[in-house]
């Protein structure tokens, strides 16, 4: 360990910027580190997400938000630190194992499913379908059919709640970018997550659809899903999220209510590049 590293580690250990006094924690990130060659993308990040909240994660470009998402959801292997979902340590697990613990993520750019209709694409969402076992297809076809029917009904109900049920039989690749974001959120809900990580849900979505998206997130939150969302649109995130965690240069700069964050000197400095 070099001197610089040691100093950074000390700083992280002594001065934890995030609020650590939460009762019911669904995601705990402790001292998480990741570097790509000489670039430190995540630098001893520590924070918690409380159950039932919509937690915002903001920060200037290159602050390491997406890397953090990839680390938490298992797409990257951390160099150090730990991640806990629902009190279970999931550090270093495969994404599908982490999903089994109730953490589902979406992607910044909507992922297209070639050759599927919207409702087919929705049906990928539910976890642990009996029809996902090859042998069940032949030895328990009735069971597979029952679950498929139930899942299809769920999918169509959720599409209706999202007010996009008219798209159900459209090709999944032929809908607008904003609609894709809605479909992606709807599909993630079919996986019944306890914690849903949204990577820039409002990016590239027109204002009308953006309001609709915000409404949906709020509604799903009231129904019990916890959200952690990365967002660049300050208006969107400040209206929706509480608390907001600010990330800068790979570590947590501060955490607070939208009010506190917006008026904090350090945050303004970070965004304007004034901080040394």
């Amino acid at each position, binding site marked *: 360990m070099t001197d610089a590293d040691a100093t950074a580690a000390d700083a992280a250990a002594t001065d934890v910027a995030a609020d650590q006094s939460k009762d019911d924690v669904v995601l705990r990130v402790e001292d998480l580190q990741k570097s790509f060659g000489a670039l430190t993308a995540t630098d001893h990040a520590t924070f918690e997400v409380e159950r039932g909240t919509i937690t915002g994660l903001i920060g200037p470009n290159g602050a390491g938000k997406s890397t953090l998402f990839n680390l938490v959801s298992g797409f990257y292997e951390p160099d150090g630190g730990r991640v806990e979902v629902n009190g279970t340590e999931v550090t270093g697990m495969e994404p599908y194992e982490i999903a089994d613990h109730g953490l589902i993520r979406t992607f910044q750019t909507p*992922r297209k499913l*070639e*050759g599927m209709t919207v409702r087919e694409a929705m049906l990928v969402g539910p976890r642990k379908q009996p029809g996902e076992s090859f042998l069940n297809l032949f030895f328990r076809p009735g069971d597979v059919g029952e679950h498929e029917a139930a899942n299809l009904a769920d999918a169509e109900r959720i599409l209706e709640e999202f007010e996009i049920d008219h798209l159900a039989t459209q090709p999944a690749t032929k809908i607008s970018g904003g609609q894709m974001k809605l479909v992606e959120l709807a599909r993630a809900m079919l996986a019944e997550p306890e914690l849903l990580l949204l990577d820039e849900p409002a990016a590239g979505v027109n204002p009308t659809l953006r309001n609709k998206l915000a409404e949906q997130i709020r509604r799903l939150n009231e129904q019990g899903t916890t959200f952690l969302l990365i967002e660049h649109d300050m208006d969107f995130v400040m209206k929706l999220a509480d608390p907001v965690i600010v990330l800068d240069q790979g570590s947590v700069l501060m955490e607070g209510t939208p009010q506190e964050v917006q008026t904090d000197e350090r945050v303004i400095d970070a965004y304007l590049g004034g901080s040394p």
Partner: protein
Amino acid sequence: MRVLSDPKGYWADLTRSEQGVVAFIVAFAGLLLVGLLTGALAPTYFLYLVGLAGMYALLSFGLNSQWGFTGLINFSVAAFFGIGAYGTALMSASSSPIAGDLLPIVGLVVALVVAALLALAIGIPTLRLRADYLAIASLGLAEVVRLVVLNERQFTNGSAGVRGIPPFFEGFPVLADLPQMMPGLAIRPLPGTTIVLETPFWGALLNVVVVLGFVGVSYAVLRRAHRSPWGRVLRTIRSDEDLARALGKNTYGFKMQSFVLGSLIMALAGVFYAHLNLFVSPGDLDPVTTFYVWVAVILGGSGSNRGALFGGFVIVGIREGTRFLNEFAWIPIDVAPLRLLLIGVLIVVLMRYRPQGVLPPQRELIWPKVVDEAPDRPDSGVREAKVGGGDD
């Protein structure tokens, strides 16, 4: 069947590509029928061709369930085909250096087990990596298998090949002797032509029964798999593996299942080939087989089982059909050797004008009977023919 009771409604419910393919098949079948009736096409040879077409259909099914479903690039189709052929040949042939004279059904089981083990052996290190690595590894595997077969003479007879393979039904109660027991028949379908059906014809007919059985079972299995949640995960992996992972799917496991399943079907084609040809040699493992099968799957429409079936038949049509072109004296050059060139041109034309293949999946793939009002007109449930881009 609806085709018979309501042919007009059936025709109207088909998509345009389906109508085209049906018309093509009817025309081609008519042509074959004329050939058979006039005696231009010998019935025994015709049945051999049907067997060959069935074999290519099986190979295409296998590759389609790897590439078409999951997007796995497997360049060792010939290796798995060879494992199937040599697996059963070495068990059942009289000249086999290792076992020999066992029942073909034992050979079938051995061939499938060996193919599955080989698929696991190549899949375990490569399926966790990016798609390209499987492609590279499988390219090497094809050569390794071929060279092992060629050089390990004490096990495989090397370049001499394995002779004395019995027909598939050897050892079965009635079927084994059926071709010998059937009487010779002479048929006069048209005035002036006589077709004589003797033992070789009945033997060939039995082979066709075998291959139709294999093709039928494989098709039924694959169609069900394709329409299931299992198949949907594979299709998700093909489009975007990260999405499947994020939604909690163990993509490595799914890819492995798809790879092993496809390899088993390819080996099945090899087993059939050994009992069709009654002789196998290292030449049967030439990479050109892999190439033909890829063409068949792409031509038929990646991801479509029916497309793979169609593609397999077309490839045999081109492969064997070009032999006849030499009969036309006015063509100044020897056409048959240009076969590969013709297929190349065909693929280029296809990629330019119809990159998704002739018969890509036409309808939503949801478990049967779950959707009552399955939308089947092009403007609703049927995905529209894509213009450029996309290949399934």
